[in-house]
Each structure stands twice: as structure tokens, then as C-alpha cells.
């Protein structure tokens, strides 16, 4: 009785002239990961070009700070980047403070339905915009920001759509980044980075034992985040052990 391996070898040998290595999975060369300037995160090599990467987390977990860091590294190198903003929440002021070069950034603000003919929801607009920009090509980072989209809505995206996005960025120099509350792309995502809030740093500047509030008696200084690589096909096909790291972002620039 022939084994599966022997059968496979036999089929491949017969098809060798027409389809070389017909049943052997194609080896993919991993492309370089885009640095974000946060040393702990850069060690994870979590943002390889030509892949779909999901950054997941609840609000106030540092997702957008990480996105701005990536955009800053890309745009300051003269590379174009795009943000498809489902809930129109991008803040150019804080992006500039993080070092994002706004002239290299394309911002697509979904959601306004001023024209009655336009019946698409912000969510559908964003998916169509992603398709258009992926076809256009040439962007270093293409971000689909669904950070404020409810999980029940995000689940409605069919797996075929995620697969299409993944295929569109394969063998390109584009990193397709998805910001959301929970992962949805399943096996189409090369990396899933889960962020959670680990603490908030507060500086007390006055005597806080008094019950009366005094202006400026405290300053919310830092947002501490714990990052965990939930899925990392970029490093190994299957990873049972997860990689954790910590990083912090500061709020001082605002006050």
C-alpha cells in the first residue's frame, strides 16, 4: 500500500513538466518588518511588508499611538501612507506631534451622507476604499481604522473579503494594517497584535489629601500598554507560545 508521501511524490513527478512542485506549498520569502520606533515592539518584527496585520484592543489601549508611530516612521522616510477612517476619528494634530508627515498621508474620511444618492454606510465605504487603494498600490502602509466600530458590525465582513485583501498585498511593499477591537481576519492575517491597558501613570503635583479640587493638582502622564502577539505566521506557521511586551505612550504634549 502506498503512503500519502509516496503518492504525492508520484503525482509531482508526473506533473513536473507542466506544474513544477504541484503539491508542495510555495515557500514565501518574508519581507522586512516596518519599524515603529518603539524598541520593545520592533523586537517582535510584527509588521512585515506584503502582509495583513491586525492591531486589536479596546479603547485607550494604545492602538492609535502605535499606528501613529508606524505612520511617522513610514512618512518621514518619504513613503506614502493611507488611513481609511471608518468613524472619522483621526486627529492630525496628535499625528503631527508623533512625527507623521501629513503631506505624505492620504486620509479617507468615511461616513458623511450629505448626498442622498450615496446610500452606502461608512463601513461599506471603507471596504470599497480599501479595495480601491489596494488596487492603486504604491503605499507603504494602508490602514483600515475600525477602532470605534462595534464588534458585532465588524463580524459582518465576510472571510472572502479578508482573503481578497491579503491576496492584494501579497508580494507588494504595502503593509495592510487593520485597527479593531477584536481580530476578524482569521487566517488571512499574518500577525495579530493584541493590546491591553496595563496602567495609567498620574503625577500628583499638589497635596491631594484635601477633598477640594485644585486646578492642576495632578497630571495624567502616561498610558501603559501590554502587547501580545496572538498570531504570528510571519515567524512560524503555528505558534503556541505567545510573545509579550510592554510599552508606554505619553500625554505630556497635550498639557
Amino acid at each position, binding site marked *: 500500500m502506498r503512503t500519502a508521501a509516496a503518492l504525492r511524490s508520484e503525482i509531482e513527478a508526473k506533473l513536473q513538466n507542466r506544474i513544477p512542485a504541484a503539491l508542495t506549498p510555495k515557500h514565501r520569502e518574508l519581507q522586512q518588518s516596518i519599524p515603529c520606533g518603539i524598541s520593545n515592539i520592533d523586537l517582535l518584527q510584527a509588521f512585515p511588508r506584503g502582509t495583513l496585520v491586525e492591531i486589536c484592543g479596546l479603547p485607550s489601549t494604545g492602538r492609535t499611538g502605535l499606528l501613529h508611530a508606524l505612520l511617522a516612521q513610514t512618512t*518621514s522616510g518619504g513613503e506614502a501612507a493611507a488611513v481609511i477612517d471608518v468613524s472619522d*476619528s483621526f486627529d492630525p494634530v496628535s499625528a503631527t506631534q*508623533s512625527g507623521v508627515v501629513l503631506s505624505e*498621508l492620504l486620509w479617507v474620511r468615511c461616513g458623511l451622507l450629505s448626498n442622498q444618492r450615496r446610500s452606502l454606510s461608512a463601513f461599506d465605504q471603507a471596504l470599497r476604499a480599501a479595495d480601491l487603494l489596494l488596487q*492603486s498600490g504604491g503605499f507603504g502602509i494602508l490602514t483600515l481604522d475600525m477602532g470605534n466600530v462595534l464588534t458585532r458590525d465588524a463580524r459582518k465582513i465576510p472571510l472572502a473579503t479578508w482573503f481578497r485583501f491579503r491576496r492584494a498585498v501579497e508580494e507588494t511593499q504595502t503593509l495592510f494594517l487593520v485597527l479593531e477591537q477584536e481580530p476578524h481576519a482569521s487566517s488571512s492575517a499574518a500577525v495579530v497584535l493584541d493590546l491591553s491597558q496595563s496602567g495609567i501613570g498620574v503625577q500628583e503635583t499638589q497635596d491631594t489629601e484635601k477633598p477640594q479640587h485644585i486646578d492642576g493638582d495632578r497630571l495624567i502622564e502616561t498610558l501603559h500598554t501590554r502587547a501580545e502577539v496572538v498570531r504570528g505566521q510571519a515567524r512560524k506557521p503555528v505558534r503556541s507560545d505567545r510573545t509579550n511586551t510592554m510599552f508606554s505612550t*505619553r500625554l505630556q504634549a497635550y498639557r
Partner: protein
Amino acid sequence: MLFACVYVPNFIAQAAARLDPVVAASPFAVVAGTPPQVRVVALNAKAKNKRLWIGMTKTEAEASTGTQILERSIKLEASAHGALLDCTSRFSPHCEDVADDTLILDVSELSKLLGTPTQIAKSIRAQARNLSLYIRVGIAGNIDSAIYAARTTKGISILPFGKEAEFLKDAPLDILNLSPKILETLTRWGIRTFGQLGTLPELSLSERLGQEGLRLQQLVRGQSFRTLSPTSAPVSFEEGTDFDYPVEDPESLAFVFHRLLEQLTIRLTARALAAGQLHLSLELDLAVDDVKATERLFTRTLKLPVPTVDTKLLLKLLQLDLEAHSPGAPVLKVALRAEPMRPRIVQEGIFVPKGPEPQRLEVTLARLRKLVGEDRVGSPELIDRHLPSPFRMVKFAPGAQLVKSSVASCRQAALRIFRPNAPARVENVHGAPHTVAFDGVRYRVTQASGPWRRSGEWWTQDRWGRDEWDLVLTAQDDRRLLVRAYRDLLTRQWYIDGEYD
């Protein structure tokens, strides 16, 4: 020296039907004049076969079934003449504009590039065919002989040097543009061809017709010494067409746009130029019901990221622009004008990151504008004004500005703005927020930092002022949220500006 004359026979008819192949393929008559004296001024061959003639009235021409009647259009004739100039400028910069239908160009040095005079003439004719013009070409050693050769031939005529008189001997005297008095005299003498006039004794001719007679004889003998005076007319790349009936569906204009753009790009290419901007003018019919437009003239300008002669790209951009900005009324006339620019040739750097391809990006941006709205796609640009969120949207043009690398060394937390700001209910205790409720969820304030007063534009109608707080909110499920809240100083209402993330 060798000169080529390019002559467009039946210029008025060719100009009228140049941009409409359907009309050109059927019998048509071009009419002009003020009613009731509107008469036929040009016909095509098929109309002549139907026994129509130049000079008949419009009413008589309309009686012929299957014949299209076209109004004479000076604009179309100017466009055809411009196309003819573009055609010849591809071959020689030394070009004299003799008449609307006649151009002379110096082809002395072209033999090394294009071959024999016959090959040169064939190349010129082929180029003219691309511009929907049927031309005749005459080549001779002097300008006048070249003109007469072009006017007498049915295709290409090459006159050998010194044998011009022999080749033109059968040419009729009509093409000399003689004064009626001289023509009458010569006709009375029985002189009807170049050959007959050339053989008359010079002295006798001088006695009867004076110096003009001698000049005419030199012309028919091919002894002209006229020099070429090159003209440099202002170049205008404009093509247009009129419709017989108003076109209601803007999508059906695509066929017309394609034809006009094709002509424009061929003309631009002939001069080694490209379109930097495209101006579209539509004349609308406001005399129908349910018209949204108020102006008779509808204009749009497309600014292209890089000069281009890609017809498909230009057509797509025009279509997308018209879909986003509907004229709002049936269209009577279409005109397209291209701003000529030198094509941009850029050498890509080896170490420079490859950006989006400009032409492709422009189409994508047009599609995105149609999808989400005109002013909701682009790059944000900070403005120097005292606003809560001081930015404006500008056109996305990657690589247009010199990028200064200034990545912040200390990582900043980002703010996600709620647009519009979420109204909140806030309870204060000892002057600081204690509980906050927004979006249907009630939070306990565990940390509050503030207030931070910000205001601006108090010198205008758009004055604003707010006391801002950074709040750490804790929900019932212990989920913590870091938000920026503010109390509007004008309305005394509380809002959540955004969340730190």
C-alpha cells in the same frame, strides 16, 4: 530648397464632419447665411452624387431625403485648421500659414529622416488621417509651384526641379486666383491652362496685361522666387461639437469625450506636448422641465498630477468628475480645451521609496471622492488659527514637498476625536467631575486632571471657549477609558472631545 504644400480640399465640409464619423459617412450639406438667404456652401461627394449643388437654398437641400444639413461653424473650422497646423509642425518648424486650407512647409532637410519626397508626403498624409483630415500634398522647388501642384493633384504630386512648367501645363487658370478682369481677358483669348499662358510671347503679354501679366507667366512657368515666411500662430488645443438634439444622459457623452480627447492627444503628441489641465465647457438646454442647473454654461477644470496624453485616463477622470458634479440639464454643446505642458520625464532613484503611480492615483482619488465626498479625501494640513482642531483638507500629492525627518523621540499617546463631539452628563463633586455619562454608559471618574482653559476666535463670529479635563473613566465592568472632556464656556454644556489611545 524643397517645399511641401499641404492642401485640404473641400475644407468647410471636412471641418464640419471631422469629429463625427457617422455624419461624414452619409451625404451632408453645410449651410450658412442669414434667413431667408441660407444657402449651401459646401457638400461632400455623396451629397454631390444626389445632385445637390453649392449655392442652392437650405429649403431645397432639405428636400433631398437622407441628406444631413449642418450649420457652418467657424469654431469647427478653426479647430480643423489648428489640427492641420499641429500635423505639419510634427514635420517641420518652418511652416507658413497661407490660408485656412493651405500650409507650406520647408522639407529640405527631411530626406535624411523620412526618405524620398514621396515618402515624406505619405508620412504627412498618414498623420493628417489620424486627425481625420484628408489632404493633398504637392512638393516642388518653389513655393508657388508646390501650391499649384497640391491643388491640381488628387493625392501626392512631386514636381522635379526645373520641370515645374512641364508638369503643370494642364493645370486650369482658376487656381491662380486671378482678378475677374484678367481672367475674362484670358478666357476671351482662349487661354485656359498654365501651358497656354506660359507659351505666350512676353513682350506682347506685357503690352496687354502689364507687369501683372509677366508675373503670372513666371508663376505658370515655375519661376517663382517667393521666400517662406514662417508663422508662429498661438497654439490652442480645443475641440468641440454641437448636438442636433439635447443629450440628457451624461453617460452617453463618453463617446463624444473619447473622440474629442483622441483628437486632442494626437495634436498634443504632434507637438511633443501633454495635457496639464483639461477644461470642459458644456452648453446646457434650460428650456426643459425639471432642470436643476441655473447657468447656461457649465464648466469644469481637471488639474492633472502630471502632464499626460493618456486618452483612457483623461476619459475616466472626466467621467468620474461628471458623475460627482452633474450638469443638471440636457447638453447642447461640448467643448474640451487642453492646457499644453511639457511632458514630465523623471528618473526614479534607486533608494527612493516607490510611491503611487500619479496617473493611477488620480483615478483612484476621483473614485474615492465619488465614494465618500469631495472634501473628505486628501491630506490634512495644519493651519495657523486658533481653532479647537486647526486643520484643513488639501489635495493628496505625495512627494511634492521636501520631507523633513522629525520623528518624535518620546512616543506620544494619540487622540481619537469624536466627530461630532459626544454630549455628556457630568456630575461635579468639589469642583471636579465625579461621574460622566455618554453614549448611554455611565462611568465613574477615577482620575481627573484639569481644567485647562482654551479659547479662540473671540474676535470673530466663530468664537469658542472651553474648560478641558483629562479624565480616567471606569465603567461598571472595570474597563478604563482615558478621555478628553470639556465644558463649553458659551453653552455650559459638557462634551467628550475624544479618547486617548
